[in-house]
């Protein structure tokens, strides 16, 4: 009985990750082989992920160094801003990037004024740009963690010896931190769907995920979708397995507010900090700037879609927390593997698998929202578990023996000790999940018709119809909902908590 919740959670996760994959694999027509287009998609997926990861990490090094050795007003805000892309809906960021780098955007307006030829954001360049926008901040946080972990005394020692800080301290630290950061970002970019959907496409900028979607949605070629799904899973599983081995760091960690006194500073630091701030803040500012007038344009359809998004997010948050809690309380090696499995899975593969499983019994469109809810919950599970598992471990370490001598067990232990003490991490995890789910444009795009569309999907359709004012309004609403959901949950966890 004790292990039942964890057992149920494990079953559900395995069903949604490996089960859907099996359902897909059974349909795969290997004899059919891969077409030239499929090979192009695989090459593009790997290529763009590699370029995105390398560019993100390369740019992140000087930014992280500047943050590590400069103390200034607004540093805390900037570090917080670097955490924001994680909960930012992809499609909102894409709209912001279009406003800056797109056809009618600020950059091209400037180029035109200078008499230069305009640049196009669509295609491989745009895909990489969007990925760098999302992952440069993550890379900065991961690398900054390496920097703040170098003890202050080492810098003092280096300064005394007049030794090169770079050779003595920083280069060895980077040699340890960079491979992990690069692989994590490579993995994230492998599963890119929404960015490729909006900025990529065509024979030269289609990811495997996008190809799966096209196979299901347009060609209804389930065999091909299945084959592509297997390839996608193999790619992700390989990358995840490698990343798992070389990644000791994690980007949620606190302690990034530490600045060590240093004796080697360069004026370039300010340039890097200014550049990254503009690069991150300008697209968001444009979303707000263009969105405000568009808010009046939002029809009842958009509000209905927003309602569906919130409902799905609430459901997937509850489910994800239940799964995460069950696994975190159980602990152990198997649950930790189950917890990271969704990182290797892709939402589109899960969606395709569920589509294949449910297709004989029900109209997939009617199940679009429940399926999205489940998939979002499982996709967020690795992050939820990463927050909850160490917290549960701490509680056990600090209060486990006391609870045992008092005879607190099972439900009483949970009610009186664990849940009250978990409120803060639960709130944070709920905030992450809710924001991710509200902004998700993935599996919903496989199934939904107008009657089930969520806000990101509705926004995508507005963009496709070139109704950019309404899309901008929807983007602002979506941004507010995602950030608001995170704030409410995180805040709820912090209120009235006794340390």
């Amino acid at each position, binding site marked *: 009985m004790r292990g039942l919740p964890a057992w149920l959670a494990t079953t559900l996760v395995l069903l949604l990750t490996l089960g859907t994959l099996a359902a897909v694999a059974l349909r795969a027509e290997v004899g059919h082989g891969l077409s030239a287009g499929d090979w192009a998609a695989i090459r593009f997926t790997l290529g763009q992920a590699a370029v995105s990861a390398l560019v993100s990490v390369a740019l992140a090094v000087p930014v992280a160094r500047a943050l590590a050795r400069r103390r200034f007003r607004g540093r805390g805000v900037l570090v917080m801003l670097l955490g924001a892309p994680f909960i930012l809906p992809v499609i909102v960021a894409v709209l912001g990037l279009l406003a800056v780098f797109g056809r009618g955007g600020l950059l091209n307006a400037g180029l035109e004024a200078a008499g230069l030829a305009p640049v196009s954001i669509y295609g491989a360049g745009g895909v990489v740009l969007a990925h760098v926008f999302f992952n440069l901040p993550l890379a900065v946080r991961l690398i900054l963690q390496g920097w703040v972990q170098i003890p202050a005394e080492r810098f003092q020692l280096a300064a005394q010896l007049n030794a090169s800080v770079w050779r003595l301290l920083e280069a060895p630290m980077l040699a340890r931190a960079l491979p992990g950061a690069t692989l994590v970002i490579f993995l994230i970019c492998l599963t890119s769907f929404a960015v490729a959907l909006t900025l990529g496409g065509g024979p030269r900028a289609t990811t495997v995920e996008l190809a799966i979607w096209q196979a299901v949605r347009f060609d209804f070629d389930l065999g091909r979708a299945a084959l592509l799904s297997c390839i996608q899973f193999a790619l992700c599983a390989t990358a995840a397995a490698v990343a798992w081995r070389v990644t000791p760091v994690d980007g949620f960690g606190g302690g990034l507010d530490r600045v060590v006194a240093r004796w080697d500073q360069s004026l370039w630091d300010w340039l890097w900090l200014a550049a990254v701030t503009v690069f991150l803040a300008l697209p968001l500012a444009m979303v707000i700037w263009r969105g405000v007038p568009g808010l009046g344009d939002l029809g009842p359809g958009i509000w209905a879609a927003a309602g569906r998004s919130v409902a799905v997010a609430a459901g997937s948050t509850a489910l994800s927390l239940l799964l995460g809690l069950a696994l975190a309380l159980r602990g152990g090696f198997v649950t930790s593997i189950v917890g990271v499995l969704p990182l290797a899975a892709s939402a589109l593969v899960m969606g395709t698998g569920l589509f294949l499983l449910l297709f004989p019994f029900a109209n997939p469109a009617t199940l679009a929202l429940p399926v999205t809810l489940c998939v979002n919950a499982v996709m967020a599970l690795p992050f939820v578990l990463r927050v909850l598992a160490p917290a549960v471990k701490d509680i056990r370490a*600090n*209060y486990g*023996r*006391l609870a*045992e*001598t*008092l*005879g*607190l*067990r099972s439900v*009483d232990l949970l009610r*009186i*000790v664990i849940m*009250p*003490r978990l409120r803060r991490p639960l709130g944070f995890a709920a905030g992450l999940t809710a924001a991710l789910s509200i902004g998700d444009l993935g599996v919903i795009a496989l199934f939904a018709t107008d009657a089930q569309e969520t806000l990101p999907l509705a926004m995508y359709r507005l963009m496709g119809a070139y109704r950019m004012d309404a899309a901008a309004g929807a983007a602002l609403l979506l941004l507010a909902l995602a950030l608001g959901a995170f704030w409410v949950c995180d805040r709820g966890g912090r209120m009235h*908590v*006794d*340390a």
Partner: protein
Amino acid sequence: MLTLDGVTLAQGDFRLTADLRIPPGLTAVIGPSGGGKSTLLAAVAGFLTPRAGRIRWDGDDITVRQPGDRPVTMLFQDNNLFPHLTIAQNVGLALAPRLRLTVAQQEQVAVALAAVGLEGMGDRKPRALSGGQQGRAALARALLADRPVVLLDEAFAALGPSLRHEMLTLVRDRLVGQGRTVIVVTHDPQDARDFADQVVLVADGVAHPPRDTAVIFEDPPQALRDYLGG
């Protein structure tokens, strides 16, 4: 009477043997750090299962019983109170692990708090109390718990000498006064001298049978002499 019958405790490479009986009253456990004082208490509390031997309470074999089912309550070095529960709730856990206290039980909690000098502080959270008051609250819980054996694992080590004396006086007056078997781990031999009826010396992998405090300090065995120095 608490009896450790040919007990061998193992933690990694570390071994501790104990073959002794502890009568009611206040027993101090002293010895060099890392010598196994806390290990001995962990075995009595049920956090560590002996490799060999039996632990008995008044003839009942409690060697493999769950910590919550033993006639034992324990005060730790820190984290004796749940920070999110009020003082009254923390103390009330001794009576009702589900925290659904009857009116009579609430009255008992109030009486116990008064007995340790925390009258009217039941509604406060632990962080609103000083370190000494938190120690008193934990004592109040031990007072209420219907457990004849009370273990204190350097529970007052973080307090200054005068507060620590105050606490040990309370332990003497209240817990020992009720006829309980109180076992106190301390790193201060003076505490043992001032408060203990008997002393268990833990050194060189052996927990020695208790000896009368006056006697053992009068003519210390070699291991105690090494520990005390001089």
